[in-house]
């Protein structure tokens, strides 16, 4: 109870602090891209807009996953004073749309031919009731595995492409004195690893029916789920004892320093390698997570637009939406962030080979039906269901439950959250 009080006071204070006057013709943007490369990406958008005569009021609420930002956004929206745009993604866009807060930017979309610029999987997420309400900034691929080739050479192992092979090669690395899998024991990282296992072991069809809304409980109850947990459980032995609570970038640096062989993490890990001055191919290798080479688990960041009462602000909002889909912004932003552009028709020349792989996989997977939304990053199911999956995955991974117990727990938790 005391905490409910504390939090509501917090939200109220944040509300007071951030209700600055935004003049007509400006945009106010809520986001949580506050770290180095991300902040640079946002600043680029700001400059583009100021060239177009649109002012920018920054409404940054720090906190990597955006939980704090969402709390502030809710109080702003309820009090009838929402920002122009907010960093919201996946099914959350639909939740906000259902509540009637979002602006219709179909006009901009039609004028700029978004229907042809965006792949269908992307544009579906951006629409509510058939109308565009949000603009995508990037596509992350989550099912990447980052390896240190030096470590593999020393241990006489090869980079695995299936989960069965992973167990063999990881054992070789361990035998040579390395940590096989660099991992941070935080719920979202456990879920990211679990997701790679689900796609690698179960395949795209299973993934789409069991882990994408609407969830088919019969498929989730099948033996495949037990198999998934079997493999997931086998990974426990390849992680060092210090992993609980470790941040993902610390795990990445273990791979860089040659203490660990592999890490399974989205393409934002590439930024870490780049900052450390390492070269792809020689110093580190990017491959798809075992068993998912043809697949692509996507995580799309986007800005959703809130309905405005003032015509000048609506005009500014439309300018912002058009700029976000521009080739300049998509190129610069994604080079900084490690992801790939969300729209088609952007020159590939400046991107590196990992990004090229990601682009190819995105197109190929979309044709073969193995392009799947990431449930570990809030793209596939409602926050209640993804919370249930998080809980089951992280609880299983940090205990000595059997695969059957893990699967039963997952089914029960998902059923209860629906």
């Amino acid at each position, binding site marked *: *109870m*005391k*905490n*409910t*009080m504390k*939090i*509501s006071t917090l939200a109220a204070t944040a509300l007071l602090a951030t209700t600055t006057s935004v003049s007509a013709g400006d945009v106010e943007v809520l986001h949580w891209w506050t770290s180095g490369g991300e902040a640079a990406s946002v600043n680029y958008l700001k400059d583009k807009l100021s060239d177009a005569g649109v002012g920018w009021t920054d409404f940054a609420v720090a906190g990597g*996953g955006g*939980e704090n930002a*969402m*709390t502030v956004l*809710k109080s702003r929206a*309820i009090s009838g004073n929402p920002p122009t745009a907010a960093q919201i993604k996946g099914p959350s866009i639909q*939740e906000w749309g259902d*509540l009637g807060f979002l602006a219709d930017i179909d006009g901009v979309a039609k004028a700029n031919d978004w229907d042809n610029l965006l792949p269908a999987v992307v544009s579906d997420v951006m629409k509510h009731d058939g109308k565009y309400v949000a603009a995508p900034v990037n596509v992350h691929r989550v099912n990447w595995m980052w390896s240190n080739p030096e470590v593999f050479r020393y241990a006489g192992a090869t980079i695995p492409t299936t989960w069965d092979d992973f167990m063999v090669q990881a054992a070789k690395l361990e035998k040579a004195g390395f940590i096989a899998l660099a991992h941070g*024991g*935080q*719920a979202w990282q*456990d879920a990211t690893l679990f997701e790679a296992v689900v796609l690698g072991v179960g395949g795209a069809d299973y993934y789409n029916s069991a882990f994408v809304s609407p969830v088919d409980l019969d498929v989730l109850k099948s033996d495949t789920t037990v198999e998934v947990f079997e493999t997931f459980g086998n990974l426990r032995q390849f992680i060092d*004892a*210090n*992993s*609980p*609570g470790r941040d993902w970038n610390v795990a990445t640096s273990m791979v860089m320093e040659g203490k660990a062989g592999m890490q399974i993490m989205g393409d934002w890990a590439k930024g870490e390698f780049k900052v450390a001055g390492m070269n792809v191919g020689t110093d580190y290798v990017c491959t798809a997570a075992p068993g998912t080479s043809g697949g692509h688990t996507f995580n799309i960041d986007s800005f959703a637009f809130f309905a405005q009462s003032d015509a000048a602000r609506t005009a500014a909002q439309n300018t912002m939406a058009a700029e976000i889909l521009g080739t300049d912004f998509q190129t610069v932003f994604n080079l900084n962030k490690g992801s790939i552009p969300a729209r088609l028709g952007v020159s590939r020349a400046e991107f590196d080979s990992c990004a090229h792989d990601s682009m190819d996989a995105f197109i190929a997977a979309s044709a073969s039906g193995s392009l799947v939304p990431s449930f570990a990053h809030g793209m596939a199911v*409602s*926050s*209640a269901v993804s*919370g249930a999956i998080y*809980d089951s995955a*992280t*609880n*299983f*991974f*940090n*205990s000595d439950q059997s695969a059957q117990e893990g699967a039963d*727990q997952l089914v029960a*938790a998902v059923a*209860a*959250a629906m």
Partner: protein
Amino acid sequence: MLNYLEKHLPKIVLAPTTIVMIVCMYGFIAWTGLLSLTKSRMMPQWEFVGLDQYVRLFANPRWDVAVDNLFIFLILFIIIALVLGLLLAIFLDQKIRVEGAIRTIYLYPMAISFIVTGTAWKWILNPGLGIEKLFRDLGFAGFEFRWLVDSDMAIYTIVIAAVWQSSGFVMALFLAGLRGVDDNLTKAAKIDGASTVRLYWHIILPLMRPVFFSAIVILTHIAIKSFDLVQALTGGGPGYSSDLPANFMYTFSFNRAQIGMGAASAMIMLFGVLAVLIPYLYSELREKK
């Protein structure tokens, strides 16, 4: 006019505080109670579903873990902090040298926020950085102390950090109480030949009853509202094995878009506090008459 003011001034002065109390404490408690009966998810919505949220709450394995942890934490934290605080106070009360300096040292942790305490202990208890590494570097190769990364033991690391932070404060409470004991009483007991142990056990401790009362009330509410310490020290992990109800409530209300269930868990926490405090307050305050 003057008479009227004189008569009503106290009420007028107190009125704003009372209104703020009624709205911000009891009003929001009632609002949370109502919310817990609705099917609210991302935003409050007033579609009532009876006790459905409570049924879902108690079916959630994570809530079970959080409640079990609260009992472990509450009991161990209060007992250890009380015993340690009392012992420190008694030792300090033996008219020793540099008492002022020692007292300040023991009291200092209280000046640090739980976030700092949690972060510092996270490093101290981390097997690769802290105690385990220290002992291994000193030559005890087989030394193991990894409660922080062990699902079954993680909750006890929270007890350690919380006790470290709060026992100095309990010491200060008891020290103030001990200083208030009438010297004549102790002298009389000594003349009658009571040993120091008997003196404390039979005469001084019973006199400390009001101090026990304040200490337990303060420690209980520190324990139940513990949120920042868990967040900083273990983040609820490994898995969710060191979650406390406050962390559960925050996660479900604000991160998981299940405000209804979060409100239900907040109400259960409130009932928990009341169940402990009301009988205690009742028995303590009644005897005062």
